[in-house]
C-alpha cells in the first residue's frame, strides 16, 4: 500500500504539532500554556482516577487473601496503624528533643510534623521512566508544591504539582529527584539521587574524609525537605579513590512499588529533630558494626607507644 498525499500531510501536521508542544513545554515549564492544559487535564481525570482507585482498592485487598467481612475493619486498622506509627515517630522525636533541650536550655514546647493523610490513587507507568504518584488530596486540603511526603517507613518524595483535589508526587527514586541529606549522627552534606525505582539510590557524600560504611543510615537534612525524615540505608560503598565526593548505594526505606497511605507534611518541625525519627537500631538496618557513627580515629594514646619501635608504625594509617 502506498501513502497518499493526504496521509503524508496529516502525519506531517501531527508531528509538527508534537514538536511544537515539546518546545512550548520545555521553554514554558509549568507556568506556560502547556502547564495550564496539564492542570486542566488533571482536574478532569483526577476524580475518575479516584473513583477507579476506590473500586480497585477492595480488589487489591481481596487478592491479599482476605475475606470480605474483615476488609473494612482491616482498612480502618491499617489507617490507624499508619497514623499511630507516624505519631509515635514524631512523639519519639518530641520526647528526645525535649530531653535534649531540658538538659541544654531548660526549654519545653515542641514542634511536630503536621500531616495531612492521603491515599495513592494512581502511579505513572514505568515505561515513561518517571517515578510519580497521584494523591487524593490537593490544594483544598492545604497541599502546596514542594511539600515533603512521608509514610510510616520514611521519605516518599515531594509534591511536584497540585490541582484542587489531587497532587502529583515526585518519588524520591525518580531520576530527577535529589534529596539534600546527611548521615545519622553527622552533619556532612550529602545528596541522595534517585536512579529509577529498579535501582538503588545513589548517595554522594560531599566530604572525602567521612567514614562511610554499609549500614549507615541517612536522613533528610532539611533545606528542600522537612528535616530528620529517614531516607534509607547505605548498602554498598563505591570505591572512589582521589575524588572529593564519596559515592555509595542507598536502599530507601520506602518501597515505592507498593505505596498506599502516605502523609503530606503541611507544617514541619520548628527545630531540627536530628536522628530521632529513625527507627530503633535493631529492627532496621542490617549492619553488624557496633558504632558506625563514631569516626574511628586510630591514633591517640596508641600513637605515643608506637613511636618506640619502627615495626609498630601501623597506627598513623592516614
Amino acid at each position, binding site marked *: 500500500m502506498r501513502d497518499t498525499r493526504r496521509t503524508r500531510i496529516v502525519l506531517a501536521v501531527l*508531528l509538527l504539532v508534537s514538536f511544537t508542544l515539546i518546545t512550548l513545554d520545555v521553554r514554558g515549564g509549568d507556568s506556560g500554556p502547556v502547564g495550564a492544559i496539564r492542570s486542566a487535564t488533571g482536574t478532569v481525570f483526577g476524580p475518575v482516577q479516584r473513583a477507579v482507585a476506590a473500586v480497585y482498592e477492595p480488589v487489591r485487598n481481596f487478592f491479599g487473601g482476605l475475606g470480605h467481612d474483615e476488609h473494612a475493619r482491616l482498612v480502618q486498622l491499617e489507617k490507624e496503624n499508619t497514623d499511630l506509627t507516624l505519631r509515635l515517630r514524631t512523639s519519639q522525636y518530641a520526647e528526645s528533643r525535649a530531653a535534649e533541650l531540658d538538659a541544654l536550655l531548660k526549654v519545653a514546647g515542641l514542634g511536630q510534623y503536621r500531616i495531612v493523610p492521603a491515599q495513592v490513587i494512581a502511579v505513572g507507568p514505568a515505561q515513561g521512566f518517571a517515578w510519580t504518584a497521584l494523591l487524593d488530596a490537593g490544594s483544598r486540603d492545604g497541599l502546596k508544591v514542594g511539600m515533603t511526603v512521608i509514610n510510616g517507613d520514611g521519605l516518599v518524595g515531594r509534591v511536584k504539582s497540585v490541582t484542587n483535589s489531587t497532587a502529583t508526587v515526585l518519588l524520591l527514586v525518580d531520576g530527577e529527584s535529589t534529596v539534600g541529606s546527611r548521615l545519622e549522627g553527622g552533619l556532612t552534606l550529602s545528596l541522595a539521587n534517585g536512579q529509577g525505582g529498579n535501582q538503588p539510590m545513589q548517595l554522594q557524600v560531599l566530604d572525602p574524609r567521612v567514614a562511610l560504611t554499609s549500614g549507615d543510615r541517612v536522613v533528610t537534612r532539611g533545606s528542600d525537605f522537612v528535616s530528620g525524615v529517614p531516607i534509607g540505608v547505605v548498602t554498598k560503598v563505591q570505591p572512589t579513590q582521589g575524588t572529593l565526593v564519596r559515592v555509595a548505594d542507598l536502599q530507601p526505606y520506602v518501597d515505592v512499588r507498593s505505596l498506599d497511605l502516605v502523609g503530606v507534611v503541611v507544617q514541619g518541625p520548628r527545630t531540627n529533630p536530628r536522628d530521632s525519627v529513625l527507627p530503633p537500631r535493631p529492627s532496621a538496618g542490617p549492619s553488624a558494626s557496633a558504632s558506625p557513627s563514631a569516626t574511628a580515629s586510630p591514633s591517640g594514646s596508641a600513637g605515643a607507644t608506637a613511636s618506640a619501635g619502627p615495626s609498630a608504625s601501623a597506627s598513623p594509617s592516614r
Partner: protein
Amino acid sequence: MTVPRAALAVVLLSTAVVLQTAVLSRIPLPGATPDLLLLVLVGLALVQGPVSGAVTGFFAGLLLDLVPPADGTVGRWALVMCLVGFAAGRSRDTVGRSTFRPLLVVAGLAAAAILGYALLGLLLGDPRVTWSALTDSLPTAVLYDVLLTPFVVPFVMSLARRVEPEPSWARLPR
C-alpha cells in the same frame, strides 16, 4: 475521521489511560507496566488505517503526556504514539484477519514506542533515561503487551468494525 470513530476512540482511550494509571501500574509487576493504551491504539488502527491511526495515536499520546501523574515533557508520547498509530494502520492490510500477526505488530510497536520515547528523552537531556531503566522496562513491556494482546486487541477491533459504515476489508485502499 468520522464522528462514531472519534467517539469510540475517546471512550476507549480515556478508559485505557485511567485503568493504566489507577490499576495496572499499581500492580507490583517487575519492570514495565502493561501498556493498555498502546493495545487499544493498535486495535483501532488495524481497522481504521494509517490516517486515523496517526490521529488517534497523537491524541492517545497526548493523554499519556497530560493525565496525572505524568511528568514528562508534553508532546513526547504524542509524537511517539502518532508514529505508532500510523505504523499500525499501515500494517492493516498485511495483518488482515490473522490472529497471530497482531502479536508481532504489538511486540514490534511496544519496543519501538519505548525506544522512541527514550531517544526523544536523550535528545531533550532527560536525566531519567538511563541504560538500566531501558533494559528494565523494554523486555518486560514487550512481554506484558504481547500477553495482553489476545484479550484486548480483538475486542477493540470488533468494536471498531461495528462503528464502520462498511467492513474495512471490503474497501479498496485509498
